[in-house]
C-alpha cells in the first residue's frame, strides 16, 4: 500500500493490437496484470476495507447513541443526508489543506460517505424490532443491555448487512475518484489512460471492468453472509 504505486508501462511497444489501440488487447492485460492491474486491485481493496471498517465502527457507535437518545436521531440524519450530497471530487480537494495529498485525505472522505450510508440503516434496524417483542423481553426481566444484545441487534442484522452492501459497493465506486489525488486504486489506470493523447482503450476497459467486478463480487459475498447470519430471513432488502 505504501510502495511507490503502479509502474506506468510504456504503451509505445507491444503487439499490433496495442499500437493500433484496438478495443481490447488480452495480451496487454496479461502482460501488465502483475505491474499495473493487480497492484491497483489490491490498493483498491485496501482503501475500501479501511474505509468500511472505520465507517462501520463510527456508524455503529452513533446509531447506538441515537437509539438510546432519540433526540439526536433526526439531527444526525439530516447532517448525514447533506454530507452525502458533497461531490467526492470536491470533498477530496477540500481536505487537502488539512491533511495533504495523502491516503489519509482519501480515507477521511471515504469514511464520511460510508458513515452516511451505514448510520441510517443501522438506526432503522435497531428501531425495527416490533414493540411487543421488546415488551416481552422486558417482561422476562432482561436488562436494557440484554434487550439490545439479545433481541434488537439480532433482529437488526438484515438491515445492517443491507446497509453494508450499499456502503461497500458505493465505496468501491467512489474510491476510483481517489485517482484525481493519488496514483492509487483502480481509478488510476483509467485516469492515466484517459489523459493520454489517444485514450488507451484496453486499460480503461480492464480497470473499469475490474472495479465493477470487485463491487459485484463483494455484494454477492455480503448476500451470502446475510444468509449465514440470519437463516430465518429468506428475503431481505434489495
Amino acid at each position, binding site marked *: 500500500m505504501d510502495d511507490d504505486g503502479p509502474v506506468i508501462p510504456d504503451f509505445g511497444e507491444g503487439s499490433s493490437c496495442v499500437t493500433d489501440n484496438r*478495443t481490447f488487447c488480452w495480451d496487454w492485460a496479461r502482460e501488465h496484470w502483475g505491474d499495473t492491474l493487480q497492484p491497483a486491485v489490491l490498493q483498491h481493496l485496501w482503501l475500501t476495507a479501511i474505509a468500511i471498517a472505520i465507517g462501520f465502527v463510527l456508524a455503529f457507535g452513533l446509531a447506538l447513541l441515537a437509539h438510546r437518545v432519540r433526540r439526536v436521531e433526526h439531527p444526525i440524519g439530516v447532517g448525514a443526508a447533506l454530507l452525502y*450530497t458533497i461531490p467526492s471530487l470536491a*470533498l477530496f480537494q477540500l481536505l487537502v*489543506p488539512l491533511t495533504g495529498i495523502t491516503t489519509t485525505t482519501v480515507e477521511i472522505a471515504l469514511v464520511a460517505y460510508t458513515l452516511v450510508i451505514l448510520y*441510517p440503516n443501522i438506526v432503522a434496524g435497531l428501531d425495527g424490532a416490533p414493540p411487543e417483542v421488546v415488551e416481552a423481553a422486558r417482561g422476562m426481566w432482561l436488562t436494557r443491555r440484554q434487550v439490545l444484545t439479545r433481541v434488537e441487534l439480532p433482529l437488526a442484522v438484515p438491515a445492517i448487512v443491507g446497509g453494508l452492501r450499499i456502503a461497500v459497493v458505493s465505496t468501491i*465506486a467512489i474510491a476510483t475518484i481517489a485517482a*484525481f*489525488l493519488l496514483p492509487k486504486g483502480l481509478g488510476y489506470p483509467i485516469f492515466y489512460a484517459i489523459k493520454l493523447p489517444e485514450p488507451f482503450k484496453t486499460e480503461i476497459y480492464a480497470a473499469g471492468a475490474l472495479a465493477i467486478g470487485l463491487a459485484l463480487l463483494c455484494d454477492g459475498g455480503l448476500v451470502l453472509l446475510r444468509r449465514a447470519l440470519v437463516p430465518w430471513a429468506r428475503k431481505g432488502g434489495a
Partner: protein
Amino acid sequence: MIVGDTFRPGIFVDALAFIADNPAFLAGKALEQLVLAGAALGLALLVALPFGIVLGHLHRGSGIAIGASIFARALPSLAAIAFLLPVLGIGFLNNAIALAILAAGPLLTNAFEGVEGVDRDAVDAARGMGMSAGQILRRVELPLAVPLLMTGIRVAAVTVVATAPIAAIAGGGGLGDVIVNQASYRLKGVLGASLCVMALSAAVFLCLVALQNALTPKGLVRTRVVGDLPPGKELQ
C-alpha cells in the same frame, strides 16, 4: 500532480477571496455544469422513468429494477465517463450520455418500486369503478407513487450534478475544469471551485426536497424526506 502551494488552513480564506473576485467566471462555469447535468437528467428521465413505470404497472421485471440499482451503484462514475470515450469522443455528448446512465439506475428502481408498491386494494377498487388500465395508471398508481418517483428524481439529479465535475477530464467543462487544473488556478482556485460545487449540489438537493414535499398528494402521509431515510431506498 499538485505543486507549489503550501498546505495551511488559511488557504480557505484565499479560496473565499477567489470566489469573491471571480463571481462571473464561476457563475458561468456553474451554468455550464448545470446545462450538462440538465441534459443528462433529461435524457435519463425520458428513457428510464417511463420504463420503470411500465414495468411497475405490469408487475414484471423486478429483477431488472433491482439489477439496475445494484449496477448503477457499482459503476464508477470515472469508468462510465471513460467507457464511451473511444466511441463518442471527448466532449458534451459523451459526458451527457455517461451521466445519464448513472442517473438511470435510481430513476428506474424508484419508479418501479413506487408504481409496483401501490396498494393492490386501491387498484382493485379503481378497476371495480370501471377505470381502464390507462386511467388506473394516471389517476391511482402515479399519484400514489409520487413520493418514490420524486425520490428517484432527487437522487438522480444530485448524482448527476455531483458527478458532472468529474466529466471535466473528458472535456465536460463546468466547475470541474477549475478543480482539475491546479496548474492554472492554484490551490485557492481549486478550493473555491470545490466550495461552489458543494453549494450547487446542496442547493439542488434542497430544491428537490422542497419540490417533493410540494408535489406529494395531500391524502398521502407526508414522508419527512431529510433525515428520514428508509434503508436502501433513499441513498443513491
